[in-house]
């Protein structure tokens, strides 16, 4: 649990910690950790790309490009739909390789 930056009442009670954080799904904890890093890096890339899209939208509309304008920008429904489609396309492009063992069967372990 991160440090609580307050002295106010929390209305919490003690909890029973789960034991799922170190779960190894890929046979080697290093592989699992590496995949987690790869997904997190994807999120950072998309975060930067989304900021860039907002800057472009502000510039195209000849609006002031300030940190506040970027932070509070509300995409139009059209932008929202287009950005979601692009996100899904990027995810697919980046991660489709992860399905390929099943598709080819070539390197899957014998069943």
């Amino acid at each position: 649990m991160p440090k609580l930056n307050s002295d106010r009442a929390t209305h919490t009670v003690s909890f029973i910690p789960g034991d799922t954080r170190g779960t190894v799904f890929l046979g080697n904890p290093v592989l699992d950790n590496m995949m987690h890093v790869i997904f997190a890096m994807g999120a950072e890339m998309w975060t930067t790309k989304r900021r860039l899209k907002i800057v472009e939208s502000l510039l195209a509309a000849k609006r002031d490009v300030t940190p506040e304008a970027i932070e509070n920008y509300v995409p139009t429904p059209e932008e929202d739909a287009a950005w979601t489609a692009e996100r899904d396309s990027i995810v697919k492009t980046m991660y489709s390789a992860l399905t390929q063992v099943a598709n080819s069967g070539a390197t899957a372990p014998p069943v």
Partner: protein
Amino acid sequence: MFNRRSFVSVSSFLAGIGLLPASKSAQAKSGKLPVDIAPRGAKGRTERHPTLDLESRQDFMAGVTLFANGELGIASRNRVLDILAAKKLNPQKEMPIDEARALFDGDPVIGMRDRMWHSAHNYEHDILDEYFHANADKYLAELEAADKSGPGTLELNPDMKVPDYTRHEIHQQPGGYVGNPFAGHIYHYATNMFYRGGNDQDQRHISYAAACPTPADGSVKRILDIGTGIGQFAVALKERFPDADVHGIDVGAPMLRYGHMRAIDLDVEVHFAQRLAEETGFPDNHFDMVVSYIMFHEVPAEATRKIYAEANRILRPGGVFYPMDFNHASPRNALRQYGEWKDHRWNNERWRLEYASLDIVEGMRSAGFSVDDQSDKKGTFARVIGTKAA
């Protein structure tokens, strides 16, 4: 900054598909909150993430989850079926979990799908947890101010003995529902990602409230939502039954505090209380309807029996008990059983298997209800309706 266009489009959408009458489409930012920390405004019924980067990171993980449940999920399911076919096993048959694990654990595609889903889930919990803890003082001040405000009320019971079974980190949520001061905040944003945009306007809760069975005599004056969490179902029920007193109870004070604050923001009057579903403290024959949404798979069998009995006690004769949860009527097979086991073990759904093993209909009958099981084998959720004898 609040955007009028998205505000209108969301409420129009909900009204257009019949989930809400146009005049009843509650929106966040009613102006009723005494302290309102919403630096980026709201989109309809949901406050936007407090920072653009949080929103973008979570948006990406929504895409990752979509892929894990979509393309990679299909590949993973196909892998299960391929393995069963190679062993000449009938995919429609039940299978002991040890046998299923021996077959499927360690497969690279199944493992990769689970890793992707798991990582997305943990990542989005962690970034929310870190943000709200780092900015704790202003968000706790917002909750404190809302605790004492209305519409609606909030009753907290600091001396309540919280049962151990509720103190787990359900769904791997950091601190669970009782141990993290921002459990409600994290739950709301995280489940919005889980539903991948399909519930950020409470669409699911509104549609479930619309489909909620009512007493045969049509009289609905008091409704109780047990295990209300952040109150989305209770709010939707109040919107469907504006003349009824709607109550929501839960053991998790942080969840209730967020739910109460959100109900104020939506300007919907719901009465929240930190109480046990097994021992609600309400009088006999008090409610016309007692309902719950996906609570019972988080509850052990012994507590379930007690809650059924308590629901029967507090319902008036002819009152309706509607415990909405995963479908017991769906066919059981190796794929489903393996999925339930993974949800139980790796998503920390502690009581998921106990729930799956229960005879819900018989349990409700034993508690005194006449039971109408309308469950559709293809549905995600069971539809089992209990009526207290008149």
